[in-house]
């Protein structure tokens, strides 16, 4: 049995009765782990995938977004991830349209003129251009790299065939925000590239996810530098989550990933040591790169 299949069986066993998945074995279903598990299990667990999808659909808030976990009521960053998940089917048009509308309305706090003014005049410890905003992790906070990147992928996918001017404008702004927040050496961290005049280093996972959002953009020097940084760093990384996201990202840039996949399979073994279901699901997706439709691919 191949490695991904063994991991998929393990992930199936960890599904909650509600149809969702927690991160670490509690009974609290979390939207990130559920979305990634639904994507990862596609062909290995059609019933589980249906139950997981129905669970997600039941969890959609009235405003069109999803909370980070079941029990909370505040729509958050995971909405983009659910939209990516639902985008892999051609169904659920109403739920997807409502999710898009939520994403179009949501913005980092610097999207408001008052806070833009504050960041430009008074609060300049962190270097960034507040005119270029994306999406926050949770409402009433500023834009950060990973939620912005997932939102860009989700909107690009959903509007690929019929993109209105408003979506196009929001995509442009989000892309500009990502490029503005890139680290000096290439790559991305949470979104603070220079603090008190000192450049901060990039993170693997944030870089991989940001590059997924920029896969269909012109290969600017910054994108090429970031890709080179990710290739170099992923060659030695030993953490499953970061390695898995690296593979998913490098693959869409047509970089060779077979060696990385082999290392990931070795690191993860039978998966029992991987208690985080979101990590387990991401690893399955990475190991299946090239064998299934990439869930974060953006059509040009």
């Amino acid at each position, binding site marked *: 049995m191949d490695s991904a299949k063994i991991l998929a069986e393990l992930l199936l066993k960890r599904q909650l009765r509600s149809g969702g998945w927690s991160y670490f074995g509690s009974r*609290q279903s979390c939207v990130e782990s559920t979305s990634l598990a639904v994507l990862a299990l596609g062909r290995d667990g059609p019933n589980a995938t249906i139950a997981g999808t129905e669970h997600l659909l039941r969890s959609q808030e009235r405003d069109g977004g999803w909370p980070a976990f079941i029990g909370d009521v505040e729509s958050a960053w995971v909405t983009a991830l659910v939209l990516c998940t639902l985008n892999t089917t051609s169904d659920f048009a109403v739920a997807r349209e409502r999710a898009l509308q939520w994403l179009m309305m949501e913005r980092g706090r610097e999207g408001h003129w008052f806070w833009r003014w504050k960041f430009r005049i008074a609060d300049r410890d962190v270097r960034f251009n507040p005119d270029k905003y994306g999406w926050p*992790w949770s409402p009433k906070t500023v834009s950060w790299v990973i939620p912005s990147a997932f939102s860009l992928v989700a909107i690009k996918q959903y509007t690929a065939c019929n993109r209105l001017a408003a979506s196009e404008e929001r995509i442009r702004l989000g892309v500009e925000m990502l490029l503005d927040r890139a680290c000096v050496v290439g790559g991305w961290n*949470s979104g603070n590239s220079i603090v008190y005049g000192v450049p901060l280093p990039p993170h693997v996972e944030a870089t991989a996810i940001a590059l997924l959002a920029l896969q269909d953009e012109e290969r600017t020097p910054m994108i090429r530098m970031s890709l080179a940084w990710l290739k170099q760093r992923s060659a030695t990384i030993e953490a499953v989550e970061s390695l898995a996201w690296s593979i998913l990202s490098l693959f869409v840039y047509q970089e060779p990933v077979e060696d990385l996949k082999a290392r990931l399979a070795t690191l993860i073994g039978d998966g029992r040591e991987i208690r985080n279901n979101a990590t387990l699901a991401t690893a399955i997706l990475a190991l299946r790169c090239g064998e299934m439709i990439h869930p974060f691919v953006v059509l040009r």
Partner: protein
Amino acid sequence: MAATTGVAADWFWPKHSVSYRKPCSFVAILNAADYSEKVEALLMDGLRLFRLNVAGRRVLLKPNLVEDLPGPINTNADIIGAAARCFLRLGAARVVIGEGPGHQRDTELVVQAANLKPHLADRQIQFVDLNRDELVRVKLKANYSRLGGLWLPRTVLDSDFVVSMPKIKTHHWAGVTLSLKNMFGIVPGMKYGWPKNLLHWHGIHESILDICASVPIHFVIADGITAMEGNGPLQGTARDLGKIVLADDPVAADATCARLMGFDPLRVQHLSDAGRFLGNLKAERITTLGDRPEPVTPPFSVLPEFHYLVASTH
């Protein structure tokens, strides 16, 4: 005048519904030149000075694990591992090391980089990623931040004995990051993001006070063998302090650490306010077991914005 008004306002409209101040707090400053296997014996001797009753209790160790970068950023893993084994020897029913890194989303990467994994081989010592633990809504027991409530990890709330284990560092927004600031790491990233930006918007000092009022710290083990000065908590420089600070009161611990760093603890905003209800700030209410705290010379370097922290004796 402003301080008097603040105290009066606090008396009429208190911002906290709890007080953890004791008549007297105890602090011990242990000398340790470097990180070695000797740390465990040193720590055990230090803990015995406090006659802690942890038998049968669920102990949570909350270290400061932030990034997978070189330098004195994270609480040293040898001290974390030693503390875990010491509490088991003192009879703890369970020891959990819990952390929710505030910048790096891949917690495993941080745990690997901190070299904590070898210490987790003991089956009685478990690591919990507080960024992704089951969450419970908690009404905050202080209202400096006006957050009202927070979702917090069940592992933290189910613990009987919380040990904050900071790295002694300067901090470019809070001035210092010690046992109180270290509790930012219990706030879950899956809900509040990486970084936990909502806390910044509600005020770093204010959020620290509200979190520590709601999740009391029972003991502190501060790693100051190699500390950080300058542009902390990530980009500062190493400063050999050669100390581990133990305390049964987080305010007393942080005040002592601040004095060691050459700072006036009253000038650290959250520490000054914490002295009203989270513990003892004034030296006369802190009994030192062992060596007296002697401020280092020169004091820890800070960014220009924080020059006011330096005690006037320097």
